[in-house]
């Protein structure tokens, strides 16, 4: 078998693939839907012999030869029932960018916030989602971080499935400053309205949010060394 023959230097093969060493994850991560969709489309195209420009991710509409989906490794700051001001969820989102080493050009950084399944029937209170940069972490996990600029604030009716934020500018700054991680601060407020008043009595929307909130960051980079410009091909 290939693996056992001493001639085969998998170390060299890993280097060639741009990997320092073979990862040894403890357990398999679920494959994100978007990556599953992309690789299946590529496998189908390869099987049909169709030529492909794999330096262009048509599902995302950007150029790129390396797609990384980084899971959020942050924590909730506090979980409380909707207070007077409606704030019910405060969370630090933390993405470890140290995996992004090579010089590639960043072509996309998309934060996806999955707020839980859509509910068309029992209308939930409107949510105000605010995303800010963390300027100073403070005591990691124990004190409230010092916030930097507000990146986005939007109001969405009830749990809306997933929200997406373009963080390309933010991640570029991070990369430029060679900072190894990306801290963001997420706050979700529950807006009072006649529906929510009724619903809050029946069901606490915060619990639902905290239970189902899932955040991930999709980073797409293009390494010119690995992707010849299509024009030259033409």
């Amino acid at each position: 078998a290939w693996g056992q023959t001493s001639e085969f230097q998998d170390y060299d093969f890993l280097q060639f693939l741009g990997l320092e060493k073979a990862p040894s994850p403890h357990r398999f991560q679920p494959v994100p839907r978007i990556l599953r969709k992309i690789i299946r489309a590529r496998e189908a195209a390869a099987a049909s012999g169709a030529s492909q420009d794999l330096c262009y991710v048509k599902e995302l509409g950007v150029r790129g030869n390396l797609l990384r989906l980084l899971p959020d490794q942050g924590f909730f700051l506090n979980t409380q029932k909707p207070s007077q001001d409606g704030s019910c969820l405060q969370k630090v989102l933390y993405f470890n960018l140290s995996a992004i080493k090579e010089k590639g050009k960043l072509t996309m950084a998309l934060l996806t916030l999955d707020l839980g399944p859509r509910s068309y029937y029992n209308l939930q209170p409107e949510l105000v989602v605010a995303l800010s940069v963390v300027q100073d972490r403070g005591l990691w996990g124990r004190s409230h971080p010092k916030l930097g600029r507000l990146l986005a604030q939007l109001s969405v009716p009830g749990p809306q499935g997933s929200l997406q934020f373009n963080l390309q500018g933010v991640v570029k700054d991070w990369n430029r400053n060679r900072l190894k991680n990306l801290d963001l601060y997420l706050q979700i407020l529950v807006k009072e309205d006649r529906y929510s008043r009724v619903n809050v009595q029946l069901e606490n929307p915060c619990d639902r949010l905290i239970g189902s909130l899932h955040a991930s960051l999709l980073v797409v980079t293009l390494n010119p060394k690995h992707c010849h410009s299509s024009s030259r091909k033409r």
Partner: protein
Amino acid sequence: RAAIPVPKGFCKNLCHRHQLFINFQDLGWHKWVIAPKGFMANYCHGDCPFSMTTYLNSSNYAFMQALMHMADPKVPKAVCIPTKLSPISMLYQDNDKNVILRHYEDMVVDECGC
């Protein structure tokens, strides 16, 4: 593992594609590579005799080189090389729970020629 037998009637020592599959399981890579299961490490090998050049998917200059080799053996023979390559994508995870889809161009030999 060379899996696909050479078509009947085809002289084995002529330039053609040799298929070779590297099973990631053999390398122990199945623990971190999610897809594909393995890698086609095909290669081109075989003779490019002058008399067959016009049949072996040859380029013009391969024909000329084969002709010149006939006239002067010091001129090296035409060689068998890949003429069509295709990319591969690898889906794997690293030690930081990141799931990564990486694309590599011109990795798999589809066709050979002189």
